C-alpha cells in the first residue's frame, strides 16, 4: 500500500498526474519547433 492505495492503483493514478507534466514538456518542444515543420504533409498538400 502506498498513500493508502494498493500499488497498482497508486501507479496508475500517479500517471494521471505525470502525463500532463510530460505532455507539457512535449508541448514546449513543439512550440519551439513550430517554425520548422518536420511533418511530411501526406497526400493532403
Amino acid at each position, binding site marked *: 500500500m502506498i498513500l493508502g492505495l494498493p500499488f497498482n492503483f497508486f501507479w496508475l493514478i500517479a500517471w494521471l*498526474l505525470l*502525463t*500532463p507534466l510530460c505532455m507539457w514538456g*512535449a508541448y514546449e518542444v513543439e512550440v519551439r519547433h513550430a517554425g520548422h515543420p518536420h511533418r511530411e504533409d*501526406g*497526400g*493532403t498538400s
Partner: protein
Amino acid sequence: VNSSVVALAFISVIVSAGAFIGFYAGTRRKMDLEQWIVGDRGFGMLLVWLLMAGEVYTTFTFLGASGWAYSKGGPVLYVLGYQPLMYVVSFFILPPVWEVGRKFCLQTQADFFQVRYKSKYLAAFVALVGIIFIIPYLQLQLMGLGMIVEVASYGAIHRTPAMIISFVIVAGFVLTSGIRGVAWVSVLKDLLLLFSAVFVGLAVPYIYFGGIDPMFAALVRAKPAHLVMPGATTNLGHSWYISTVLLVSVGFYMWPQFFGASFSAKSSDTLRRNAVVMPFYSITMPLMFFVGLAATLILPGLTNGDLSMFAMVRKTFPAWFLGLIGGAGALTAMVPAGVMILTAATLFAKNMCRPILWPGMTDQQVAKLAKTTVLVITVAALCSAIYSSPTLVSLLLVGYGGVGQFFPGVVLGLYSKRVTMPGVFAGVLLLRLPNMIPSWGSMPVSLRCVVTRQLSQP
C-alpha cells in the same frame, strides 16, 4: 414530502436548466451548416476542453466505471491505463487533422478521408461504418440515462419514458443550436459531474470505513482476489488488459464525433493545450472506482453492478442529493448523445447522400436533410435501447472495435504519401466486416478463423 417527488424535482430542474442552456446557445446566430456542425471553428481552449470532456466522460463514468469496480474488480483498471495514453495520441494526431480541416474546410471525419484519398466512395463507406458504430454508443447513453433516472427517482419514472423525454430535448437543442448548444450544456454537465465524483468518491469511503486506506484494507481482508487480475472474472487477465488498453488508446479519437469537435477549435494549438490538461479530468475515474469498491462490501449481491454507485448514493445520502446526482447523470448522457446524433446525421447527409445520390445538393439542402436525419437517428437509437439490453461496457467495446480500424487510414494518411485508397478501403472493409455481422459473435472460433483467412487471401 415523498422522497421520489423531491428527487424527481431535482432531476427535472437540472435537465430543464441543461435544455434551456442548449436552446439559448443557438439564438442570435445564423445556423448555417458550418455554424451547426463546427461552431464556425471559433471555440477557445475552455469550450473545447468542456466539449471534449463532455464526450469522453459519459454515463460510463457514473455507471460502467463503478459497475466494473463492483462486479469485476481489478480489470476496471484498464480505464486508468488507456485514458492518459489516449490523450498522448490526441496530442500528436488532432492538431494535424485540424490543420488539414482548416485548409480544406472539412467538417466531418469522412471529409478527411475524401480529401486525403480523393474518393467519395471511401468517404461514404467511412461515413456508413461511423454511423453503424455510433448507434451502439448512442444506445449505451440512452440505456444509461434510463437506468439513472429510474433509480434516482426511486422508480417514480420508468426508464422508457425517461429516455424518450430526454432524447426529445436532446434532438431539440441539437436541431436549434448544433454543436454550440452541446458545448454550452457541457459547462453545466461538467460542473455537476466533477462535484459529484469528488464529493461522493471521497465521502462514501470516509462514511463507511473512515477513509480510503481502511476501505482498501477491509476489501483486501474480505476479497483478497478482487483487486488483482483477473479480479472477479475468469477471462479478463493481463493479455486482455494490454490489448484493450492499446485498442482503446489508439481508437478513442477515431470516433467520428471527435473530428467534428476538433474542427470546432479555433487553432491547432488549442487542441495541443487541451490534450495536456485533459488527463486531470480522469481523476474522476478512480473516485468512481472507490464507490464501486465500497459497494462490494456494503451492498453485496446487487443484480446490476452498473447501478452500484447510485445504490450507494441512495443508501447514504438524502433524496435531494440523489436527485442532484441523477440530474448530473442524465446530462452526462445527453451531452455526448447530442454530439453523436449531430455527427451521424451530418455523415449521412453530407458524406453519403450528397456525393453518391444527389451531387447537386447545396449546403442549405444538406443542412435540411441532416436536421431531418437527426430525428430518424434519435428514433432508431431509442428503439434499439428499448428493445435490447447488453451490458454497458460490452456495447462500448463493440464500438471501439469498429472505429479503431480508422486509425491506420488517419495516421498513416497524415504522415505518409504511400498509403493508398484501395489499401485503406480493404483494411476497413475486411477487418470491420465481422463486427457488422450480428451472428459473427455466435460462430465457433475455428469457423471464424477459416472465414477470416478466406477473406484475407488475395
